[in-house]
């Protein structure tokens, strides 16, 4: 029977030869990631069980990334609870090392795995051909206690990518364009699969940026075929695939889109939805108070290089605060080595420790009433980055850095 990549990964996790979209399967989960957004709730529920136990502790990865360093006694208490539980139970644990999805990509994700993350952007792991999906803390608890969960096998929307992105256009422009096209629930319950010769030109950083944002179209997961670029990344990071799956040529897709990458232009997503897109060039009337370069979506070394190239020798606008937040310690160290952080700091940016930062509106760089932020973060919902009456525009690293200099939204080439 012809199967999609998503069907093959779920079938393997269910110990079956095959499965099809619409089936409900009981799966063994390969890895379970959780962060300080909700792990304290999981621990409370766990401690209330009558027979608490963890099925296979080697599969758990816990990461403090959302509010690090702790910003209040409440957060400090929540971190302490998580840190001590991880230590007592022998759970792989990171604190202050970076944003959870970047840590997972650098150290844990393998092609063919089925991974639960108690975080909606877990779909990022498709960049390495893994089925990552976000769950709440109750589903997470169930998976760590039983080692299993149930999944509705999703239909797949296939995106065939052709050609190459033009200079000055980035993967983030591509995925924002796609979400604008299919809408904020255009892929609800479905897998978004990316293939085609255009994929091979995209770096792992590009691929993560694309897969990571698929949840903003409602997707259950995002998947990309594993090619030499992915295999080289795995080798560099000392890992082997669990299994390599690709959709059969005659697999059934719910929709198929052919996308010419050369037609993509710099894009922004305007308040208050990720699918509310417009060409960045048309937004020059929007003055900004703050700019943010970072997050699990766009805080990798490739993104910092893009931002630094735009801002080098220039200065952040006097009315703008510009925060640069590398996605992990490894990214931070590499940026230091390449002199990128010098460039940002000489331009007047504030460089901060790896964490979720401005993207999630609680830890750092919160915006006030009536303020406007341009961001490489994941969401622009009402109130997402601070006050309920504030405004978030999402854009690429290049557009964010250029706008930080201009004081209004602009593409880098118009700077």
């Amino acid at each position, binding site marked *: 029977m012809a199967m999609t990549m998503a069907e093959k990964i779920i079938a393997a996790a269910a110990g079956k030869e095959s499965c099809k979209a619409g089936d409900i399967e009981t799966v063994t989960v390969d890895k379970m990631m959780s962060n300080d*957004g*909700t792990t304290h*709730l999981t621990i409370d529920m766990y401690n209330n069980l009558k027979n608490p136990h963890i099925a296979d502790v080697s599969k758990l990865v816990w990461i403090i990334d959302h509010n690090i360093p702790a910003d209040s006694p409440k957060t400090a208490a929540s971190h302490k609870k998580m840190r001590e539980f991880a230590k007592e139970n022998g759970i792989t644990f990171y604190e202050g090392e970076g944003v959870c999805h970047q840590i997972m990509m650098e150290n844990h994700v393998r092609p063919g795995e089925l991974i639960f993350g108690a975080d*909606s952007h877990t779909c990022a792991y498709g960049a390495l051909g893994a089925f990552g999906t976000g769950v709440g803390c109750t589903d997470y608890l169930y998976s760590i206690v039983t080692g299993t969960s149930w999944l509705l096998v999703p239909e797949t929307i296939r995106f065939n990518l052709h050609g190459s992105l033009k200079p000055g256009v980035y993967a983030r422009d591509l995925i924002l364009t796609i979400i604008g096209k299919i809408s904020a*629930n255009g892929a609800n319950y479905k897998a978004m699969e990316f293939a085609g010769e255009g994929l091979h030109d995209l770096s792992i950083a590009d691929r993560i940026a694309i897969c990571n944002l698929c949840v903003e179209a409602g997707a259950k997961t995002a998947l990309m075929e594993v090619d030499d670029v992915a295999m080289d990344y795995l080798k560099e990071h000392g890992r082997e695939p669990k299994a390599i799956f690709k959709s059969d040529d005659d697999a059934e897709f719910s929709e198929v889109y052919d996308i010419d990458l050369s037609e993509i232009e710099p894009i922004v997503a305007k308040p208050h939805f990720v699918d509310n897109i417009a060409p960045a060039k048309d937004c020059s009337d929007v003055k900004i108070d703050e700019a943010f370069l970072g997050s699990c979506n766009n805080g990798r070394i490739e993104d910092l290089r893009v931002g630094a190239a735009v801002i080098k020798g220039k200065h952040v606008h006097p009315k703008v605060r510009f925060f640069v937040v590398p996605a992990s310690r490894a990214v931070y160290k590499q940026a230091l080595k390449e002199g990128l952080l010098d460039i940002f700091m000489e331009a007047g940016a504030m460089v901060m420790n790896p964490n979720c930062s401005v993207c*999630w509106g609680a830890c750092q760089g919160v915006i006030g009433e009536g303020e406007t932020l341009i961001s490489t973060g994941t*969401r622009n919902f*009402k109130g997402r980055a601070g006050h*309920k009456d504030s405004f978030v525009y999402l854009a690429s690293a290049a557009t964010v850095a250029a706008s930080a200099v201009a004081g209004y939204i602009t593409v880098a080439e118009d700077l």
Partner: protein
Amino acid sequence: MFSAKIWKLGDDIDTDIILPTEYLAFETVQEMKPYAFSPLRPDLASKIQPGDMIVAGNNFGCGSSREQAPEVVKALGVSCIVAKSYARIFFRNAINNGLLLIEQPDLFDEVSEGDIAEVTPGKEIKVNGKSYDIASLPDNLTEILEAGGLVKAMRKRNGLD
């Protein structure tokens, strides 16, 4: 069957609307309750009475996996949500917390806030003399809902309660 007063919201009610990030660190869901839906309607949480229902458009609960979102709605005493569609993580989280979600394509466009609905789960909703068909949930989800959430269902299944 139960009767419920309708509070009406729109499309794409996201998790940052249902419970903004700044209140996630509160230790109990009781402390979070006054801030539910506050970016959109600051006074809504204080008006919702136990047993009331929420009616919304497409993609209810889109965004974050924060389970505090369905928890806070449940804690307000909301009897059910009727929407055109739900974002998938919110859907699972709501069922796992014993919060009844109903998908219905037409009702949203035809009812007003303050209307009283009569809900017969798995069968129909009656509002203003009109009946709207609703589907039953699959058996595995009904078991979770009836137990009051996934953890309680696990206990029951394992004979611990």
